[in-house]
């Protein structure tokens, strides 16, 4: 009996029809293998695109950035591409799943519920990321203050002090990421001398007021760990069956979530450096393995710089913002009026770069947030569809 809801165009309807068809097992299995192959190729291609990243136009914000030859890994446009890749892999996955005979596969009945659980965690991570992006916005506002101040001519004490105030808060926000500040203050290069203007602790900490929007229980890092826990590459006969695309798609999902959590400050404890143990020899996995490695390296670099695990915040723009911020801070601390012409030029360059970053963030972050929400919706839909498939499967 067809349900009262409209599942137009979903793979669900294709499954119901298929179950009533009398098709020979061999033909179906052929088709399955073909689909699996196509899916693997698709995943491999899209992810290797991400590595070389010729930056295809994917959003309206590209009107500003069209001249970029490639987007650096973990930058906002790159993250947007990543999400595009995820959505397209997910669409392919659904197509593969629809040609599989659910009712004849007990393996699927085992792995699909696991996937459902992973999707739930991914949904929570999406929410955490949306909040996290808010706190990046906070950083942007502080950077904008510094930019405004340092663009003033003549560049005098007042402006520089103003910039210093903003930069202080900015740097605290970028480093602390909402972690326990008592834990890592010793590791910051810019130590107490910069923070104390002799003020009471009026310096509002927290690169965002987004303190604790994610409860400790659902810490993003823990979610990822849980998502990976029973993710095992199918072996033997299962490797050519429907469990394989489920494994691939799950791995893709975990990777994407992990990248997001690494890139965006998510108020979480330290994130795993390499959560997935991917089968390197398989074609679809090679690009994803590289991405995992590169981002893992970034994490280690950041860890060395500021001690303690990353609470996220590896977004390329944020990292550049931090670098420039530190260097501007140095300038601000040494500043004596009037500035040397050279110095002023140097500063002007950095300020311009910072301004550029702020501009990119202003548009890019909104778009990114919107995209994460879209991923959220897609995951919800998948969940509903998989649930209906599972509910129907045993009733023959």
């Amino acid at each position, binding site marked *: *009996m*067809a*349900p*009262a*809801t*409209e599942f137009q165009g979903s793979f669900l309807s294709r499954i119901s029809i298929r179950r009533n068809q009398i098709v020979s097992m061999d033909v179906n299995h052929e088709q399955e293998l073909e689909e699996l192959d196509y899916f693997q190729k698709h995943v491999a291609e899209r992810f290797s695109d991400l590595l070389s990243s010729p930056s295809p136009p994917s959003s309206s914000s590209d009107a500003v950035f069209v001249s970029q030859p490639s987007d650096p890994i973990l930058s906002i446009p790159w993250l947007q591409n990543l999400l595009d890749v995820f959505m397209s892999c997910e669409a392919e996955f659904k197509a593969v799943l629809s040609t599989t005979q659910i009712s004849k596969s007990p393996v699927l009945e085992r792995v699909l519920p696991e996937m459902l659980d992973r999707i*739930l*965690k991914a*949904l*929570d991570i999406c929410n955490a990321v*949306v*909040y996290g992006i*808010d706190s990046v916005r*906070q950083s942007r*506002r*502080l950077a*904008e*203050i510094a930019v*405004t101040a340092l*663009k*003033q*001519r*003549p560049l*005098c*004490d*007042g*402006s520089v*002090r*103003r910039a210093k105030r903003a930069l202080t808060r900015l740097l605290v926000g970028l480093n602390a990421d909402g972690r326990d500040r008592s834990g890592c203050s010793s590791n910051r290069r810019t130590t107490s001398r910069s923070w104390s*203007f*002799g*003020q*009471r602790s*009026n310096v*509002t900490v*927290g690169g965002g*007021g*987004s*303190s*604790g*929007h*994610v*409860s400790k*229980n*659902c810490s993003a890092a823990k*979610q990822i760990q849980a998502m990976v826990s029973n993710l095992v590459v199918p072996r033997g006969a299962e490797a050519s069956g429907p469990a394989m695309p489920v494994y691939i798609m799950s791995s893709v999902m975990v990777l994407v979530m992990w990248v997001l959590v690494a890139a965006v400050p998510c108020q979480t404890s330290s994130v795993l450096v390499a959560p997935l143990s991917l089968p390197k020899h398989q074609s679809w996995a090679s690009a994803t393995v590289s991405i995992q490695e590169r981002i893992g390296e970034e994490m280690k670099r950041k860890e060395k710089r500021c001690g303690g695990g990353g609470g996220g915040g590896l977004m390329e723009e944020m990292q550049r913002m931090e670098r420039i911020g530190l260097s501007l801070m140095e300038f601000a601390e040494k500043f004596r009026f*009037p*500035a040397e*012409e050279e110095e*002023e030029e140097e500063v*002007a360059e950095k300020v311009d770069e910072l301004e550029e970053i702020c501009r990119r963030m202003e548009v890019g972050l909104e778009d990114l*947030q*919107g995209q994460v*929400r879209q991923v959220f919706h897609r995951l*919800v839909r998948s*969940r*509903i569809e998989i*649930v209906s498939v599972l*509910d129907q499967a045993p*009733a023959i």
Partner: protein
Amino acid sequence: MDSDGSKLETAERIILRWDSTASEEARGKMIFQSDRDEVDRFLRAVDEIQRSLSSTSISFASSSSSSAAAASAAVDDYEVKANSAIQIAMARLEDEFRSILLSHTTVFEPDSLFLEESSVSPSLTVEVGDDSTVTPTTDVAAEEEEINSPGGSGSGRLTRRRSSYRSTSSIREMDLIPPEAVSDLRSIVQRMVAAGYSRECIQVYGNVRKSAMETIFKQLGIVKISIGDVQRLDWEAVVGKIRQWIRAAKVCIRVVFSSEKRLCEQLFDGICIAMDETCFMETVKASALRLFTFPEAISISRRSPEKLFKILDLHDALTDMLPDIEAIFDSDSLDTIRAQAVEIQSRLADAARGILSEFENAVLREPSVVPVPGGTIHPLTRYVMNYIVMISDYKQTLDDLIMSNPSSGSDPNTPDMDFTELESKSPLDLHLIWLIVILHFNLEEKSHHYRDTSLAHIFIMNNIHYIVHKVKRSPELREMIGDHYLRKLTGIFRHAATNYQRATWVRVLNSLRDEGLHVSGSFSSGVSRSALRERFKAFNTMFEEVHRTQSTWSVPDAQLREELRISLSEHLIPAYRSFLGRFRGHIESGRHPENYLKYSVEDIETIVLDFFEGYTTPPHLRRR
């Protein structure tokens, strides 16, 4: 110039006096907590410096880096000092701003807020099994322990609540900060904006109000909860949280958010374009997102029948709040919030539709095959009918949500339904009728598991009668189902009663018939005594059998039970009386008449009263 010069000097001195980086004294107290003269002096000092800067240095205050070289060549020493003074003043004002905001953070009394939000209609709690026609022997306790939903998911207990979440209250803005403080704050904002420090202002404001918002949320009981957490809760806990959320959300949106918006307008309107919108967004966006996490989690949770009504409550509450949400979050930057609310509403609607559809499926496929003892009302029947009655309570909402007719006939295992004669009915009505159709279908399947076909008929009769009874008792439901279908159902259970009579009593009455008893053609004599004895024996055996079994059968409805007994009596008693009257003489004239004349007419009449009483053990058989 001199008087100006000294005015400027004075201004500078005042500002420097309050430089909190410079002296302990300056740090120790707040300007705005000192006397008004002090405040005025400071503000005038700021104005003075600001005025001088804008009038003399237009050509120098270029923000383009390319003119840096030109500017540095003609720098005015004074200007540097003025600039510095402004920065110190702004830093100071920022702190003052924060301090005033903090000291006036309103503490909401949650109870006072909730008092206005009481629901409009009274709530009745009617447990499953409110049948007043229940006889003492039918297990009342069993009715109230209705726990198995068709899907077998355990806690299927339905409570019927009429409390309406269509509360009549609307937006109610509160003054978060007293007017004197507002005007102080405004005077600070004006100066900060004029000096180009609006960003700092927004920063401070956003931070302070955001934390205030978090505190308010805690007070309202809105907790951070993840989607995973919500899935793991058991349904009873979720029900409580839904109620709590609805109450809290109304306060949040209509009082808290609207008041924040008003505060932003009070502080920033007219000073700087769109500053109030920005500050409002900074304050509420994250909190609004957090507010919607819970209903979103509910809208995507696993669907099962008992969730329908709470999901509808949530949907209705959200629908009720949407106009206010649209009014309050009307700026572009808050688009996503409006969009999210609408999405959630739509998902909840989908969930409701999905649940209804799954319910229909579940009823159709409900697999229990163990026949209920005594042919009484099946728990499935009770559950489904109570569910349907509750659906009729939610008619208003569901009529809007259910837009497609039920589909039938595609699966060979489902009943056929001709909807053409029901064209005037809404899709929801059709779904309810369809539910009854498939319930009936399922019950027919179940009836086949009775070994005794008579009992199968009793079973159908009881259950269909119950359905009719429930429909008639609820005027709303009756209208939805319609008298046409009701008549059909009535016909079904009457037919079942007739089938029962035929199945049981034809044989019995056959033993009381005339043919085969007379030997020769003559009437008065020539009755075969042996045949007669056989007849009596047959009757006695069968009647005893029927008595024994059918007194353990059950017809819970008193009126139906009476009707059935009367009907069978009307066939049985006269036949027996006549038979007895005509032939007892023949038996009495023979040996051991007591072996054959076991029952008097009065005996039969009394015994009939045992039928359908649902005795757990057969009654002690009466002997003469």
